[in-house]
Each structure stands twice: as C-alpha cells, then as structure tokens.
C-alpha cells in the first residue's frame, strides 16, 4: 500500500513539465494558434535554462531565461504566421527542427555536466498528513506550480472575461474583431504567454525532473504534449489527466523493468509513447461518427448511456484553430 502512494506521488512529479507545457499549448490553441514548435522549444529552453542556471548559479535566472526563450520562439511563430500569413503548421514544424538543432549545437559544451537543481521543499505541517502529505506536499516548487496551473488555466478560460475573449478568438475571431478587439495583437499576447509556459516546462526538465543537459534531453515529450492537448479536447482538466496518464505509463514502464528483466530498457523508454498514442487513437475512434452510427444500430436501451459516453469523449477543436484571421 505504501508503495502505491509513492508511485502515485512519482507520477504527479513526473508529469509536472508536461502539465505546464500542455497548459501553455492549450491557451494558445484556444486562441486559435497551433504552436507546433513545442518539442523544439522545450529542448532549447531546457538547454538555456540549465546553462544559465549553471553559469550564474541562480535557479530563478535559469527559469527566467527558459521562459524568455519559449516566449521568443512563440513570437517568431507569431511573426511568420500571424503577421506574414504563412501556414502555422509549416512554420511550427520548421521551428521545431531548428530549435532542436540549436539546442544540440549550443548545448554541446553543457552536456552531462552536473548543475544546480530545484531543491526538495516539503510544505511544513501539510507534508505530515497521512496519504495527502506524501502525495501532494512532499515535492518541490515546480511540481507545486504544476498542481496550481491546471485550476488556474481552467479558471482563466471559464471563469474570467479574459477567458471569454481567449475562447472567442479561437471560435470566431470575426466576432471579437467586431467588438473592437485587435485579433492578431491578442493572439500574439496569448501565444507568447503560452510559449513562456512551454519554456518553463523545458527548464522543469533540465533543472528538476531530469536534471542536467544531454542531446535531445526531453526525448520527444513535446510531441506527446501536442497530441495530449488535442485528445484532451482543449479542456484544461482533461488535458492534465492525459499528462498524468502518460506519466503513469512511464512510471509503470520503469517499475516493470525490475519484474521483467528480459525487456530491453530502450523498449521500456519507447513503450509509453506507443501506448499513449494507441490510447488516444482508441478514444478518438470510440467517439468518431462511425461509432455513433454503430451505436444507433444497437438496441435502444443501450443507446442512451453509450451516446452519453461518446459525447463526453468527443473533442471539438476551436472552430478557427490554425486559420489566419483576415479583417472582414
């Protein structure tokens, strides 16, 4: 039983960079901009964050530099897609590769050096609670931040007037333009904020979860985050759940290594990605129109609950996602 709580706490910790990055991406996609550069941005900011923290000896500066890098990449994406009208997919993809190579090139001198790390800071008092203590209150500040950012994002999107504008930007930019909102300026702002969060997520890897820097340090996590945001239906709580599911798969894979020594560790490393993609594909398949059609052929008694499940699973993209805004 004790082991279970330890494992659960490990899952919560392992998911922290993913959750932060996923909330950043959720914000910008909700405003209608796909930041496909996520994986590259995370690598570049992880490298920068580590390097700055190592050179200055200041963790805070490391995170700030990482956030700045994430924001800068997002700004470049905005410049090329929002202002210059190029495809968000194309620019994002090129930026992903470019930032990956930049991180490899600029980060080569820092590879495999020991460096600073975010200190373990249990919260006095709360950490001693049974069950809840080890689960939620014996972590470090980055992980606490990842707990807080999910309700924060959800509240921002669904509980504030700012959130109304963000969601409207992704659904019908022409309507917010008619209300006097400068669509592209707002999209820039949200994209850059989201980018900064992605940057912080990168530093959460190099300064906390996977301390240090090495070639392709985040191992493709950025791509998984992109997929999770989509299959999480652009809703913060569901997206976070997706991140925790992925982290759980990772933890299970590492734990299973001791029980199944025959499986080579490299496969263990890839397995969560493969399983996650399968889960996401299944969820999508189950909520596709084909599935709905199949359900309507079933006895009527089964239809209602099944359709309810399908409606819950279904994720509708923001209507204007990825589309350039042109003044009417």
């Amino acid at each position, binding site marked *: 039983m004790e082991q279970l709580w330890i494992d659960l706490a490990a899952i919560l910790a392992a998911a922290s960079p993913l959750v932060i990055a996923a909330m950043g991406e959720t914000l910008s996609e909700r405003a209608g901009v796909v930041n*496909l550069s996520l994986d590259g941005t995370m690598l570049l900011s992880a490298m920068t964050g580590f390097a700055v923290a190592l050179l200055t000896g200041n963790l805070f500066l490391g995170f700030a530099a990482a956030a700045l890098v994430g924001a800068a990449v997002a700004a*470049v994406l905005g*410049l*090329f897609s929002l*202002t*210059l*009208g*190029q495809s968000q*997919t*194309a*620019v994002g*993809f*090129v*930026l992903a*590769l*470019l930032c*990956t*190579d*930049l991180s*490899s*090139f*600029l980060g*080569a*001198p820092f590879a495999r050096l020991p460096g600073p790390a975010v200190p373990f800071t249990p919260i006095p008092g709360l950490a001693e609670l049974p069950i809840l203590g080890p689960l939620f209150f014996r972590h470090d500040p980055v992980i606490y931040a990842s707990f807080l950012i999910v309700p924060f994002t959800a509240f921002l999107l669904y509980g504030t007037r700012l959130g109304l504008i963000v969601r409207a930007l992704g659904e019908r930019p022409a309507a917010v333009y008619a209300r006097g909102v400068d669509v592209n300026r707002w999209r820039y702002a949200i994209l850059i904020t989201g980018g900064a969060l992605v940057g912080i997520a990168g530093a959460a890897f190099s300064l906390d979860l996977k301390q240090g820097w090495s070639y392709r340090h985040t191992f*493709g996590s950025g*791509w998984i985050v*992109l*997929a999770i945001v*989509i299959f999480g239906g652009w809703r913060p709580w569901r997206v976070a759940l997706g991140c925790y599911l992925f982290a759980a798969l990772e933890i299970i894979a590492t734990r299973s290594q001791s029980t199944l020594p025959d499986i*080579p560790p*490299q*496969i263990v490393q*890839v*397995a969560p*990605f*493969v399983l996650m*993609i*399968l889960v*996401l*594909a299944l969820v*999508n*398949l189950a909520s*596709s*129109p*084909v599935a709905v059609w199949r359900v309507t052929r079933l006895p009527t008694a089964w239809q209602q609950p099944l359709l309810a499940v399908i409606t819950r699973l279904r994720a509708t993209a923001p209507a204007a996602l990825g589309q350039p805004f042109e003044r009417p």
Partner: protein
Amino acid sequence: MREERLQPLAILTRPLLALTAAFAFTTLVLLSTGVSPLEAYRLVLFGAFSTPVRLSDMIMLAAPLLLCAVGLSITFAGGLYNLGVEGQMIAGAIAAMVPLRLWPDWPPLLLWLLAGLSGATGGALWALLIGVLRRYAGVSEIFAGLGMNFLASGLVLYLVLGPWRRRTSASLSGTDLLPLELWLPTLDRLRLAPAAPVIALIGLAIVWWALTRTRWGLEVRAVGLNPAAAGRLGIAAARRMAETLAACGALAGLAGMIQVVAVHHALIPNISSGIGLLGLLVALLARADPRWLLPIVVLFASFTVGSIQLPLTLGIDSAIAGVLQGALVLFALASRARR
C-alpha cells in the same frame, strides 16, 4: 504572379533576402561559440566536395533524402503534412530485411528486387495506417504520423534487441551485418553504390511526370486544393489522399531499403537518421515543385556531410548544419509572405 514574371529582379530579391537572413542567423549562432564562422562555413558548404570519399557519402545521403522529399511532394500536392515519413522509412527498412533474412542464399539480384518491393510495400502499408486513422478515427495526419513514428521506433528496437539480435549478444548497434554479397555493389574503395542514386533519380522522374502530366496528378492537386469541390467534380477525394500517402510511404520505404542494403548493411535502431524529417524541410523549401527537389537535396545533403568534420576539426557540434537548413526554410517561408 504575372507581374512577377515580367521583373526578373523582383523574383530574385526575396529569395536573396531569405538567403542572407538565414546565413546572418547561422553566423550569429556560430559566433556565439567563438569559432571562426568562415572556417566553419568552409567545412559545411564545401566539405562534402573536398574528397571523393566525402562526395560519395554525400551522394549516399542524398539518394534516400531525395526519395523521401519526392514522396513528400506528392503528399504536399494532396494537401497532407506527412510527418509520419520517418516511420514509413523505418517500416520500409524492416520490410526490406524480411526477404534478406529469410532466403540469404538466393541470387543477390533477385533479393535486392524482393527487398525493394517489400520495402516499398511496407512503407506504403505503414502510411496507409495514417490514412485509416485520419478517415475513420478523425485523427489529423500530423499526429497520426507522429504516433506511427513512435510505433515504428518501438518496433525496430524490439526487433534489433529481440528476435533479430546479433548472434553474439543483443546490441543497440543493430543486427548482424548482411553477408557481403548482399551489399549493393559499391565503387572501388568508396562507399558509393551507384544503384542508389539511380533509383532515387528514377523515382524523381516518375513522380515529376505523374504530378505534372497525368490526370491522376491533376486530380491529386485538385484534392489538395479543395477536397469538397474535387469530390463534387467526381474525384474520389478520400481515395486520392490514401493513394498519395501510399505513394509517399512506398518511396520512403525504398529509402529505408537503401539505408539497409547500401548504407548501413544492417538494421540499426536509428535507421532513418532523421532523413525523413529533413526531407520534409526540403519539400517545404521546394514548395513541392519537383524541379527544385534535386538541387535542394544535394545542397542539404552536402551541409550534413560537410558538418560531420566539425567536432574533430573545430570542436563544435555538427548540428549547425541542421540550424542552417532550418533557418533557410524558415526565412524562405517568410519571404513568401504576400506583404
């Protein structure tokens, strides 16, 4: 468009600006490491042409790269971002290994044919799975492709470390080398197998012809531009999309087969070596126009091969080639802005 044709200078200004910007950016990155940019550029730009060995390496990189880029120009024409090209290459390499492992004592020529056929089929089937996910599960081809890439890397790792592991011990360096007589014949003392570039060039010619001269190519372009309208005009849009994916997968599979029989002579975990993603950059830069594919492929392959010497001679990472390639495509995209 029409006015541009009248002013040759105006056509050139934007690409030249993009080129300048890309080099300026890369130079800044180089300067940050303290090495002489001139020295680095000498190696990156001309290193691939300095010795016959390097030139042959460049050609052996260009061949699979050209196949991938050619395949991707089909999917781009059909309006699809086939990010799954890496996985298709891996699937092709795995499939190509099957006949080579099953009947190693058959005549080599027959085996190469079988390997090519099987590689192309493997790549095409792997790509069709993306089409299935897109059509029936509503997953965008971008994420279906990425997922299939992870799946393919998992599969190749499993094979290399599991059923197809070395006789001595399982190793990440790949399967046992193929018997020497199954290696695609190379030129004397070089690693250049002339058959590889020839296959790639034939692929380029066929695709160029198919996209510009045949009704199939016109239909694919119509579907890429507007699937709904193409459907109304009697074109089976979903089918054409699946066909473009399969065609791209087949070409990527062939690239994987070349990696096995002509480059690595074994199945290794990193058999695709990022060539598929580089092919995406090439296809983006060439705007899926087959005429530009060959020059860009040669250029990009020479950057990559030239940069391999950087760590030894200048002590900097070879990833600068990727930085230059990415910057070129990025600024080229910017130069296409309407404003």
